[in-house]
């Protein structure tokens, strides 16, 4: 193996330092004894304990999770249907326009999405709360899901669906029994993407949330405006570890599956 050159080693170190030093500092200070964020006064886990007793934070966390689960599920259903129709629907009127429009919310500034949704909710007299945040998150996460799913559908072998029809499936059965199981990984990653997007969204949520419901990002943001407390650091550390564990598990599972498939294919070729 080639030894890493001096230049590459420095770039790598600097790059990763740039990415991770802020987070490392945050994690370290979440274990700080002192209430002052900038002064180290010894190791302690007391902020984690206090966090668990903070009703406001716990409520916000619960709202965030509810919103994320509901909105990502709805977004996945709608986004998958949209992707299916756009890829498979044949040449209907305005198909190109629709395909273009599904990407538009991806590049739309979030402030505008949030504002337009706020105006809509006020216009139809909908009280802002958990329900409106779920609707708003569904709207923008759906585009991401449909992009992920349609990129899988484009490479999907059409003859598999035809084979299902040929063997007696109705089009709906063909979708349920053949298409869906095969594109499931894309649908699941679409769901995960929607879930993460909903989890960390601040802008749209702050437009569409009401006094009855606050999500965690909004809570953190407003708390920080009053000054950074070690409690926030503790909360952020918990979120970082959840995400890290999730990402590592997902990539290990994928790696394992790919390796297994490869082994089995090689075995089949030998036989």
């Amino acid at each position: 193996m080639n030894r890493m050159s001096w230049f590459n080693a420095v770039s790598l170190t600097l790059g990763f330092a740039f990415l991770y030093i802020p987070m490392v500092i945050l994690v370290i200070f979440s274990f700080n004894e002192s209430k002052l964020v900038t002064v180290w006064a010894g190791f302690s886990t007391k902020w984690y304990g206090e966090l668990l007793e903070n009703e406001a934070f716990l409520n916000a966390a619960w709202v965030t999770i509810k919103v994320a689960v509901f909105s990502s599920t709805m977004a996945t259903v709608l986004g998958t249907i949209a992707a299916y129709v756009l890829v498979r629907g044949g040449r209907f009127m305005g198909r190109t326009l629709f395909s273009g429009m599904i990407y538009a919310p991806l590049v739309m500034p979030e402030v505008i999405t949030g504002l337009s949704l706020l105006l809509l909710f006020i216009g139809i007299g909908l009280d802002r709360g958990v329900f409106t945040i779920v609707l708003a998150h569904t709207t923008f996460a759906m585009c991401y899901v449909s992009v992920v799913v349609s990129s899988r559908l484009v490479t999907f072998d059409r003859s598999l669906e035809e084979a299902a029809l040929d063997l007696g499936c109705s089009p709906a059965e063909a979708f349920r029994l053949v298409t869906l199981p095969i594109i499931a990984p894309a649908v699941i990653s679409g769901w995960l993407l929607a879930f993460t997007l909903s989890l960390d969204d601040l802008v749209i949520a702050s437009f569409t949330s009401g006094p009855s419901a606050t999500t965690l990002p909004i809570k953190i943001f407003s708390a920080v405006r009053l000054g950074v407390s070690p409690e926030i650091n503790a909360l952020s550390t918990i979120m970082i570890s959840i995400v890290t564990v999730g990402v590592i598990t997902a990539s290990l599972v994928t790696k394992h599956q790919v390796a297994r498939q490869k082994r089995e294919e090689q075995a089949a070729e030998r036989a």
Partner: protein
Amino acid sequence: MIHFQNVTKRYGEFTAIDNLTIDIYEREFYALLGPSGCGKTTLMRMLAGFETPTEGKIFLAGQDIAPVPPNKRAVNMMFQSYALFPHLSIWENIAFGLKREKMPKHDINDRVEEMLRLTRLEKFARRKPHQISGGQRQRVALARSLAKHPKLLLLDEPLGALDKKLRQDTQFELMDIQEKTGTTFVIVTHDQEEAMTVASRVAVMDHGKIIQVSTPDRIYENPNSVYVADFIGDVNLIEGTAKLNGSDSYAMSWHEGHAPLSIKSPNAFSDGQKCHLAIRPEKVAISADQPAEADNAVQGRILDIAYLGNISTYHVELPTGAVIKAQTANTRRIARRAFTWEDTVWLSWTATAGVLLAD
């Protein structure tokens, strides 16, 4: 059993199938043969129900099948890519169509076991499609499409993905299975050898039209056009003008300064009509001396020899510049071969060896 009546299929400006009328009979092994883009796959997809004719009607057992969706047709298809469901085991793949019929469970078991035995796949029932080899996948696809007892089985280039040896074995297996099950098979292929081997009748297609439908031997020996003669196997084509010479004999003048060729032909030609003599290389004899009593004999120089082991093809250049191919079986060892490059030789053939075709 199947009747295409004036079927036309257009995609915008492009005509894939052009006013085509054919019949396919029960228990037949029918091959659609043609170069890619000739419309053979479109024809098959119309039978399966994935395409609808622009004009004309298709009858299956006397019933117009245009309004019947693919999942309600007693027709099954074996796809070129096999289209095996990757998330299901071999067993579940074969049972897939039976389960849709709401067949009782033990009947499904029996039928799947039967299909596994027929295609010699018993050992692989629990495997997934990506865990078996290409030849085995091809047999799974066949078993799956036969499981529902279709009246008609469509095979779309079924052996395209297999190597030559495996393909030959599988061709005989296919014929065997067709005989055992008594199903009507329609096979689409661009490989003329494959069509000749498996089919009881071959339809040669070009540009959305059927050029000739006949048994493999008649297609080979009595092609009805220059296109068919040229498409099936190897052929020498000599252009000339016909002159009636006896009841069904013609003298074809083909080049100034050369004696006209004498040909017997059941097809009628008028005097002076332009025509082509199509003659297969294996029907042209090659000798060092002028043959004594040959109907036709021409002299030439050996340009090239293609040695294929069992046979050799000699490319002989005539003084006119035309090149005629002559094929001989290598019954003696190569060291004893009588001719070599640049030798002057005589080519000869009988009056009935070739076919006289109109322009």
